[in-house]
């Protein structure tokens, strides 16, 4: 797969928040001001950039069916893929702990401003989601994993930045009382997601992989399309008749 294609795809078309709803909890909780949103977004990029390639290596050399072949041919039948959740989450949790310690040591100011949100990254679904999608996508090399991790991190960053800016502005507008806060944020996110769906039509040069349709919704669209077309065609036929 073309690297640039993968990069753009992971930022816009398969955006972690707008296409898969991953990392919504911290997205909703930390998006009240732009400043904290930027801090959290940058850390998410960083953690994704490290954990996705690391988990890629673990997946290809330890967990996949037949991955242990490099040890000896005797192990070629072993399938450890059921362990992937626990391995991935262990890598992520220890990485987050490491990042926390490094940030605390070298930049106490940033550490203070992020506060509780640093350890919360460990349970940000977009991080684990990045690794699990990586596992589904059968990347051919570690560069693709790095590009994918960085791209989806940037996508998440963009999303939280946008919603934080909108929420800062919306504080002055006249929203119905029961809809204030969480409700209106959900609806705005939905509208933004509709906007982001328009990126689906983008096709860059390079061989398009048509088998990558992982979301339930895209599968549904695929299912629905021929249906509606045939209906239209038959309707036209009846009209002609």
């Amino acid at each position, binding site marked *: 797969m073309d690297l640039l294609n993968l990069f753009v795809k992971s930022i816009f078309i398969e955006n972690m928040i*707008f*296409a*898969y*709803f*991953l*990392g*919504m*909890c911290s997205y*909703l*909780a930390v998006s009240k001001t732009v400043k904290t949103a930027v801090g959290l977004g940058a850390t998410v990029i960083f953690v994704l950039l490290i954990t996705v390639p690391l988990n890629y290596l673990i997946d290809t050399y330890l967990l996949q069916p037949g991955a242990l072949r490099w040890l000896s041919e005797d192990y070629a039948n072993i399938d450890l893929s*059921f362990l*992937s*959740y*626990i391995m991935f*989450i*262990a890598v992520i*949790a*220890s990485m987050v*702990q490491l990042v926390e310690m490094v940030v605390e040591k070298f930049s106490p100011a940033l550490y203070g401003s992020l506060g509780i949100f640093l350890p919360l990254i*460990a*349970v*940000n*679904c*977009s*991080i*684990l*989601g990045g690794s*699990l*999608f990586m596992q*589904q996508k059968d990347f051919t090399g570690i560069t693709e994993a790095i590009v994918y991790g960085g791209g989806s991190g940037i996508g998440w960053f963009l999303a939280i930045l946008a919603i934080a800016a909108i929420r800062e502005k919306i504080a002055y507008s006249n929203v*119905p*009382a*029961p*809809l*204030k*806060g*969480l*409700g*209106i*944020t*959900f*609806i705005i*996110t*939905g*509208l933004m*997601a*509709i906007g982001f*769906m328009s990126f689906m039509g983008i096709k860059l040069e390079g061989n398009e992989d048509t088998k990558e349709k*992982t*979301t*339930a*919704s895209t599968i*549904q*669209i695929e299912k*629905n399309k021929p249906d*509606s077309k*045939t*209906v239209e065609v*038959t309707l036209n036929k*009846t009209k002609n008749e």
Partner: protein
Amino acid sequence: MSEQKKEIKTKEEKKKEEMILFLSKSEEKEAFLSRANRKLLTDPLNDDNPITVQMLGICSALAITVQLRPAIVMSLAVIFVTAMGNVVISLLRNLIPNRIRIIVQLVVVASLVIVVDQVLKAFLYDVSKQLSIFIGLIITNCIIMGRLEAFALGNKPWKSFLDGIGNGAGYGIILIIVAFFRELLGSGKLLGYEILGHKGLTLADSTGLYALGYENNGFFLLSPMALIIVGLVIWYQRSRNRKLIEES
């Protein structure tokens, strides 16, 4: 003399009454479904709903609400994991060092999720394919971590169990509401049965609402509608339950 005796008697009686009251109260405390325990079960369904009020667990919730069946399976899985995870952590709560508690919690949850994943693969393969990575994402579902942190670390196992079931059910309710509307309006079916009538290739072939010219709203199958429906659910809930309204 008689009066004094009476006074003593009444004092004794009072003491007895107090004892009885005390006993009954302590019994009530230990009863399996006392009022406090029932509150643990029912609160998360409305007043303290994990999704609409505590703002937890939205991540993996919305993408699997296109159809009702996976949504129900998902909520059962989450109820199982929250309840069992709460019990395990509550049993271990005095043994876990504070510094590494997050990793311990994640490992416990991850092993429970592996159990769920393998069971689904064995008995409900098609649903487990539909749920794809979202079963794995139960691990990072914030409801589970949130309840472990906020409740199981400080409470006894039975209470934690009830709290886990209550919160899992609160999550499930929202999931099922959203999935109900999305499947009904998006494809005219519920659990795979055609509710709004059968859609034939032409108007004459179709029955039910489709015979009147109704068309499925394909928009409900796309992911943004899940967010908007949850927004509307929150709107409805808060207009009924005014104390939940936020300040800003």
